[in-house]
């Protein structure tokens, strides 16, 4: 793989490699991601179903769709996509995540093409997808415009990209850095660099520069009373998600 030509920050990759083995324990290190996952999946499945006119109540609603999960980790998003009938490629720049994800997919009886590669390398190879999942990755890359341009090339015309990240606000500093890393110890200290966070308006601009048409944005909001996440139309102050399409 042409891993040396990427924009992936090697220090960032090392941080997640250290955490890879714990991916699938709902009460382990990735508990916050497992808690957020239903919300992420609701958004992703809803957007993809709407874009391609699929009914999620049908068996295998994503049959015939080719989906790429960038930064697939242990496969928390790739497996659900495969279960919904999609042909899934899971890519991760952290090599150790790939065998972890492969073993788990096999245990789950799912066929998923996991590769130790990057968005840039896949784009270089001419791979194309109906949907690209780009979840909590953009705040970790060293050159977001170049990275998003590669993601755009990975989409077929009419394809959709779901991109989530963290907003750069005082609240996100308190929640994601102080709260998640220092108080709750949900994430190792130094997982996130607040200065690299991107506001929704900045992300929309970057997406447009990359040749994509942003069509939706929503917030993921943590409710400490119910200890659960929900999707919000208005509150994009910490975690948020966007959908953008590649014009035909």
């Amino acid at each position, binding site marked *: 793989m042409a891993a040396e030509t990427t924009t992936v920050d090697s220090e960032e990759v090392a941080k997640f490699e250290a955490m890879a083995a714990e991916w699938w324990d*709902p009460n382990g290190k990735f508990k916050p991601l497992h808690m957020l996952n239903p919300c992420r*999946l609701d958004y992703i499945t809803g957007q993809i179903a709407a874009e391609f006119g699929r009914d*999620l*109540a*049908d068996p295998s609603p994503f049959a015939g769709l080719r989906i790429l999960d960038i930064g697939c980790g242990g496969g928390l998003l790739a*497996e*659900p996509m*495969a*279960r*919904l009938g999609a042909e899934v490629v899971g890519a991760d720049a952290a090599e150790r995540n790939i065998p972890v994800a492969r073993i788990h997919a096999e245990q789950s009886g799912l066929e998923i093409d996991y590769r130790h590669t990057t968005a840039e390398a896949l784009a270089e190879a001419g791979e194309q997808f109906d949907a690209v999942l780009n979840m909590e990755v953009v705040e970790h890359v060293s050159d977001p415009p170049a990275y998003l341009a590669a993601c755009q090339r990975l989409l077929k015309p009419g394809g959709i990209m779901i991109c989530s990240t963290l907003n750069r606000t005082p609240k996100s500093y308190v929640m994601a850095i102080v709260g998640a890393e220092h108080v709750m110890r949900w994430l190792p200290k130094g997982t996130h660099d607040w200065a690299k966070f991107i506001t929704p308006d900045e992300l929309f601009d970057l997406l447009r520069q990359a040749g994509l048409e942003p069509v939706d944005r929503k917030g993921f909001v943590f409710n400490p009373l119910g200890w659960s996440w929900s999707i919000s139309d208005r509150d994009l102050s910490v975690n948020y998600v966007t959908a953008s399409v590649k014009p035909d």
Partner: protein
Amino acid sequence: MDAILIGGGLNGPALALALAQAGLEVTLVERLAPELRTDPDFDGRSYALSHAPAQLLRAIGIWDAVAGHAQPIHKIQVTDGRAGEGAAPFFLLFDGAEIEEWPPGYVVEDRYLRRAYQDALDAEPRITQITGVDVTGHAVDDGGVTATLSDGRALTAQMVVGCDGVTSRTAARAGIGRMSWSYGQTSFSCAISHEKPHNGIAHQFFMPPGPLAILPLPGNRSSIVWTETDSAARRIAELDDDAYLALLRPRVGDFLGDIALAGRRFHYPVPLSIAHRFAAPRVALVGDAAHRVHPLAGQGLNAGLKDVGALAEVLVEAHRRGEDIGRLDVLQRYERWRRFDVATLAWMTDGVNRLFSNDNPLLRLGRDIGLGVINGLPGLRRGLMREAAGVTGDVPKLLRGRAL
């Protein structure tokens, strides 16, 4: 296959229908053969069904087959009483016309409910029915669960649901313990026919030995549920029908005119039993397998159908977003949803039973005044009534009559 449902009583078929109609493939395993479960003769068993659980039956498409045989409850009258003395001067009247969810409840006979379930199960292609065999074991791994049957077959699925009653072996196999205690009470039930009309009024008498409920059935018939101490119950169970009726008459009073038995007599012990957990990896418990409460409020089937509504919604949502429906974090969403509600119901029925099932004159005076006070406060009365109708709190979609 998505789920194996163990137990074909009243909750298992409802859950099977709810899941299958939403696109999941399920297998329902029941020990008894179908012909034993759908005896067309009336055997006297019937159930009080609150407004919200009736909506669930509507949503899963069996209400039309049941509705023609269901007796609406227009009013619920709660009275403190003592056998032979008639009603105490204070009583509490819940009038269905005071809330928008009308009527607040129904009484349905077991025979019609089971027939409707069976016809719907037979018509649903996503449900496989296996009858006349037991589930003898189940083994859980990362990819799913394998259940072994008494005829040697093995079934694999993403998860199993224990709908197998208060002695749930599914719970035991999953290592889920229970908190149980006995009230020292036995519950008797039977159907009676009577001279005068019941006018759609359900009665709850609180008597020193235990509560007595009179639930209206279609025509001049009612279903009686009454509770006695275990020591008295042993003698009562031995009585012939005439002696049994002679005991029942003063308890019921004379407002229905002369009464006669209109079906078989049943009796069973009244335990309170709550499973420590409602979920384990690839296992969920519903109905009596999860919780059995005092029958005084007629909430057993209602609580079970609330479980069905909540579990079906959690599983269908998880299935549609591509999650592994057997994972513990998925099933714990169901547990969190139901656990608080069930604990509240158990505590309330336990407390009410303790308050009323004694003959202390001071407590009698206090509770008579209490019933009068509640009756004088329409807001509180409406609140209690909506609670009884099951329309308060975070109500699952099916219990609001909506499809998943």
